[in-house]
């Protein structure tokens, strides 16, 4: 039971993380390999906010906004120059992540740090006869609220309609008079902010350390490939599958935990080359 909750809470975290990656891909056809670096940056900004204010909650707003603004700068300055050259845009994000991760090490140091659980969520409650940390329940609730909010925005707002149209056919949207430059820049910013948000939420559980960017990137790539690229439901399904699978794998056969989710990845690629709910063929 404990493990089931752990799995779901990891899945909720993976959803927040992967949603941003999937959104950027869906709109711009760019796999943002700096996603892990944005996640890491979010966690480190949270670290500073917690140290300065003594409270966790402001970080939940400040870090995503700060990283989102960074994304808002990067898209027009760099990515836009390479529009249409998708592979080069992906390569560019590799360079970006090198720079971001190195500067993080320069400013915050290269030691393992931790963020205390936020006040009010730092105790345990009894769930089904066992103690369970409240914070992880909060992560589950947070993930679910976000997923519901996104699907509402996606379905019934103007922004959502623009996103759906852009994912379908961005050039056509531009031809219809939508300012595609602004749309792409804000998409990239929102994707980056989501990565940072995931970093803030994860920091009290997993800590803050060099190398966390690679872990986050790999997990989010696996989630979007399994769930399907470019769709919100794909991120939900991928995260809902990989989170519990990884958690149970680590408990049941610790030696082969990662092998389990990679086996899942390989299986999905063989049977459903578009991912479970995707629109893009990944493999043939």
């Amino acid at each position: 039971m404990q493990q089931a909750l752990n799995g779901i809470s990891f899945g909720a975290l993976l959803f927040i993380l992967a949603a941003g990656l999937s959104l950027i891909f869906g709109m711009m056809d760019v796999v943002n390999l700096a996603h892990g670096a944005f996640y890491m940056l979010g966690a480190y900004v949270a670290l500073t906010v917690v140290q300065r204010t003594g409270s966790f909650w402001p970080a939940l707003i400040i870090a995503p906004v700060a990283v989102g603004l960074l994304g808002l700068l990067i898209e027009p300055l760099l990515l836009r120059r390479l529009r249409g050259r998708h592979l080069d845009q992906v390569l560019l994000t590799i360079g970006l992540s090198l720079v971001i991760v190195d500067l993080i090490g320069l400013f915050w140091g290269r030691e393992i740090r931790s963020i205390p659980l936020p006040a009010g969520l730092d105790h345990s409650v009894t769930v089904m006869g066992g103690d369970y940390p409240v914070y992880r329940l909060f992560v589950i609730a947070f993930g679910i609220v976000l997923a519901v909010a996104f699907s509402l925005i996606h379905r019934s707002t103007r922004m959502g309609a623009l996103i759906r149209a852009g994912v379908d056919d961005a050039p056509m949207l531009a031809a219809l008079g939508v300012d595609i430059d602004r749309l792409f820049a804000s998409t990239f910013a929102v994707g980056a902010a989501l990565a940072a948000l995931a970093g803030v939420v994860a920091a009290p559980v997993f800590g803050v350390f060099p190398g966390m960017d690679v872990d986050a990137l790999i997990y989010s790539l696996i989630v979007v490939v399994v769930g399907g690229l470019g769709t919100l439901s794909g991120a939900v399904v991928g995260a809902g599958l990989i989170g519990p699978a990884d958690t149970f794998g680590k408990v049941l056969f610790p030696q082969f935990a990662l092998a389990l989710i990679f086996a899942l990845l390989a299986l999905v690629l063989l049977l459903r080359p578009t991912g479970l709910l995707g629109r893009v063929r990944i493999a043939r």
Partner: protein
Amino acid sequence: MRRLGYVAGALVAVAALITFPVWTSGWESSRYATTILRDMLVLAIFALSLDLLVGVAGMPSLGHAAFFGGGAYAAAIASQRLGNDDLAIGLAAALLVAALLALAIGIFAVRATGIFFLMLTLAFAQMVFAIAFQATDLTGGSNGLAGVHRPTFAGLDFNAPDALFQLAGCVFVVTLLLLWRVRTSTYGRALVGLRENERRMRALGYDTLRLRLSAFVFSGSLAGIAGALSAYALRFVSTNDVGVPRSIEAFVSVLIGGTGTLLGPAIGAVVVLYLERVLPSAIPFAETVLGIVFIVFVVAARQGIVGLARAVWSGQMASRRRAARATR
């Protein structure tokens, strides 16, 4: 006549490279320079192997460290477990392990192309990293394997100073020749066909999946040799050798030097290792400089150093021809 000139020039360059420790022995920092150059050569071999995928076949792999690290572990473990330091055994083990890993990953990865291929190679290579990290009794886990024995071969002892530099130099030259031979062969041209127009290659009757898989395994095996050399040179193997940063190192070398150019990846390796090993003694944010250099090349000079040099060279030749015509 002209061809003879090229061959003579190449021979002189090779001789100068292999005897580097000898003719620099007067320098104060000859030892240090030789060590750095040795590691540059190892990275160059690694980058050359990757360019066969990225530059020739158009398969942008971001998981090549899996095979580099696989080879490094194989060579180290073979010498430890078999109690035999023979170079041939070490290299054979590295080749075998890297090839098998490339086959296992390639079966899935080569079904994807472009960005998706890049994503899958990155993800599957991380699986190799996880295995290396967790199989502590075999790989030493996060501590790595220290004290890898220097190899011996046919009475040669590679413990002698600079001997490993010369070994790396020889393997580098052989790799260059091999790749040059491959690129001019029918097989190499078929790989270029994959890059330019895969559908057309299929229509011509090529089994493109098998072609891509063979390139993946061939390139991975070469990377394994580079990994074995790294294990022997540093006498140390760790999970760093299978990690994402190692893959990026090779990829950045290929791109900065120039994809699909024979010498480009080697030149890129020199630039990358200079930025990573020499520059940090001067400034604390060398990795940032590397990232920025890489971004500049991607945005403004995608053809890399060799491509740029070629463009400048042919531009000069053209203007010289124009000038000659004008005076006539």
